[in-house]
């Protein structure tokens, strides 16, 4: 036992010596570098260039650019380029099959957006979806995370069970729910009938269909946010709980005054990302209802897709997309500002 301790101490000593030598070498270099920059008028400096009174090393800048370049090129091709092109098309009559003949039409597409009743309906549906699905999914995820965090037995199984819907493709779960919610022979209506209730037109009623899609979306997505919340909950300092317990705080007070403030950054991140993805809802209405009944599940993203891809009206599709992007950005930034304000 003692021998082992000596060996460990010797090893530590060697490491400390090596570290000391490294520091010495580093220190010896520092003054030289300082001198070369200040003392010799820049004669021995590496080549540099100046932008607005700030000097940059040419070599370092070059290497920096080499490393950043792939990202910049890909970003320019797949993000910036399409945004600029879409911005241009929004002011033209571009057709998917005649993009080279696009003519400038000024604000005509934007005027059309405000006259198109389907855009109004799609925006209403999308906002309804966002307003309902975000809190539902957010608090379901948080609730599940708290539950899984608290339960010790079967924790792994529960985590897996709640996460399974996330692993399934949206198309598959949409088909699954379509069968479950079928008006005439779906399992849900069969159960309602068996209980003596009245069958519900899940997929054909103008009001209920959107609500069904909201529920399905929350069910499918909550597992993912649950995992993020679990990791945030694991990082909450336990001494805070102990201190609050000593102060006599009950479980609700502990949740409100300890847990929630501690996970606020995660909460904010989950909320913003959920909000953005909720705005982009497209798969479920596309597969389950094709925007019906009577456009009552038509969403903005689906309508943009229809106009651009199916109807080939790229100009109009770009105009709707541009306006919708502003709506999304305004909502997201406002919420972000709200959360940041609270933090301050």
């Amino acid at each position, binding site marked *: 036992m003692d021998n082992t301790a000596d060996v460990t101490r010797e090893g530590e000593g060697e490491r400390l010596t090596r570290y000391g030598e490294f520091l010495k070498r580093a220190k010896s270099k520092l003054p030289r570098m300082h001198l070369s920059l200040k003392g010799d008028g820049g004669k021995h400096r590496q080549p540099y260039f100046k932008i607005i009174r700030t000097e940059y090393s040419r070599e370092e800048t070059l290497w920096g650019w*080499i490393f950043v370049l*792939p990202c910049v*090129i890909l970003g320019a091709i797949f993000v910036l380029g399409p945004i600029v092109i879409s911005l241009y098309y929004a002011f033209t009559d571009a*057709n998917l*099959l005649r993009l080279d003949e696009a003519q400038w039409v000024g604000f005509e597409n934007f005027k059309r957006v405000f006259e198109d009743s389907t855009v109004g309906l799609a925006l209403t549906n999308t906002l309804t979806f966002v307003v309902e699905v975000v809190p539902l999914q957010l608090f379901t995820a948080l609730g599940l995370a708290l539950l899984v965090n608290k339960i010790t037995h079967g924790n792994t199984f529960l985590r897996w069970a709640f996460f399974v819907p996330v692993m399934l493709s949206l198309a598959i779960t949409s088909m699954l729910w379509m069968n479950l919610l079928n008006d*005439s022979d779906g399992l849900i209506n069969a159960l309602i009938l068996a209980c003596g209730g*009245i069958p519900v037109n899940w997929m*054909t009623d103008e009001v209920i269909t959107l609500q069904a899609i909201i529920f399905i979306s929350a069910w499918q997505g909550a597992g993912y946010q649950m995992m993020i919340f679990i990791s945030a909950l694991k990082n909450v300092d336990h001494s805070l709980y102990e201190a609050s317990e000593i102060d006599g705080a009950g479980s609700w007070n502990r949740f409100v005054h300890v847990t929630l403030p501690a996970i606020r950054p995660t909460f904010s991140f989950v909320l913003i990302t959920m909000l953005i993805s909720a705005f982009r809802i497209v798969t479920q209405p596309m597969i389950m209802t*094709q925007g019906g009944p009577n456009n009552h599940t038509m969403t903005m993203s689906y309508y943009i897709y229809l106009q651009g891809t*199916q109807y080939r009206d790229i100009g109009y599709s770009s105009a709707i997309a541009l306006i919708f992007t502003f709506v999304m950005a305004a909502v997201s930034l406002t919420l972000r500002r709200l959360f940041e304000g609270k933090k301050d």
Partner: protein
Amino acid sequence: MNKNIRLGALLLTSLTALTSCGGGGDQSNNDVPGGTVIVEVWVHKNQQEPEGRVYNSLMESFNNSGFTTASGANIRMSMVFCGSTIATRIASAQLTGGLPDVLAVDCTDITSYVDAGLLVSIDDTVTTEDSYVDSVIDECTIDGSLYALSGMEAPGGLYMNTGLLAQVGYTEEDYAEPWSWKDVKEAMEKLYAADLPYQIQLNQNFGTDGAMYFHSNLVYSAGGDFGTDGAVEAALTTPEALAGIEQLEMFYTDDGLDNPRTEAWAYTGSNASAFEQGEVAFEIYGPWDATTIEKNKYTSAQYEHAAYNNYQILPYPVYEDASGNKSTLVANPCGSYCFGVTKDTENKEAATVALEYLTGRDATEAMFSEIGTFPTNKDSLAEMEQLQTGAFKQLADNLSNNEFTRPKMVKYPQMKDAYTRVLDYIKNSCNDASYDLEAYIRDQMGTVDSAR
């Protein structure tokens, strides 16, 4: 520094590899005796799919058949299996100038492609035009010029479970003439009264074009039509068109049902084999169920009212007015994927030879055997043994006698979606007090007309 150079070189190579993806291959076009002309064909399927496999074997057999141009050059076919990305690829190629010689196009897109100058007329190069059924020639002809040809058709009709109908007094003689929609409803009422499966599976939301495929006949049979680009609203609000579309209401009304909460005339369940298994008495559908029924051969031991050996396929129902006069207009608008020659071809003659091979007799019969689509070759329809009896003969007759196509217009995608919404409106709202079909059609079709 060597490390830095190597790293830089690696980055550069990766970027070059990334940006060079999707570049086109070399194409020979040496149209001289002994030379080789390569015809590039884009198809809408992946090679692994049954239809894709047929195209692949057609390409191989074409390349082994020794086709030559008039000047003696060998024609070889090269095929690109685009799958579902074909529309995007065509749009990109239209912009950058890399269209193939021949491409697959859904027959309802031909008008748009011609309007965009993407397809060229093959009037002057095609030699086998007369061998195709009329419906193919009709759907591929725009403003009097032929732009494409097809080796596939999908004639549909009214599937009827004659076993069930026999129990309420119908005999063979009753199937000699096309039925009207009213005849169908009358039979359904008899079956309902006899407590037998009575519903009709209308399939109006089948795929992306079920409404137009199976129910544009509502309009045609009543003497209406879908008009032209920019004049759809006017066409579909004529008394004929309105009367035709209104016929669908009888299958969604609550009238005559004991318990409208749990019963309906039209089947809305999820069983795709409802007709085959005798769960419903009628179905409006394409040729695919006939193939499935003959393949599965369900017996009454498996399903009490199984359709196998107990079914007929009549043409789509016809219009019948209030006085009981039945229309003589029997419409069976079908149409499938076609092949057309693009503006970028350097050898239209060779491209047409390849196109005619891909849609010719061998190809069309191979498609029938492998994927169940109907031959478009008149001789095949007249001579193929499978098409001379039973349900297949009825479908072949429906195809041969058809004179209608789905609407040919640039704004077809908008048109078919609007028509789908009209039929959905009937389905979901015809029992409501606020139901106003004409106003709804005006609203929907007005949107189509105002679209660009």
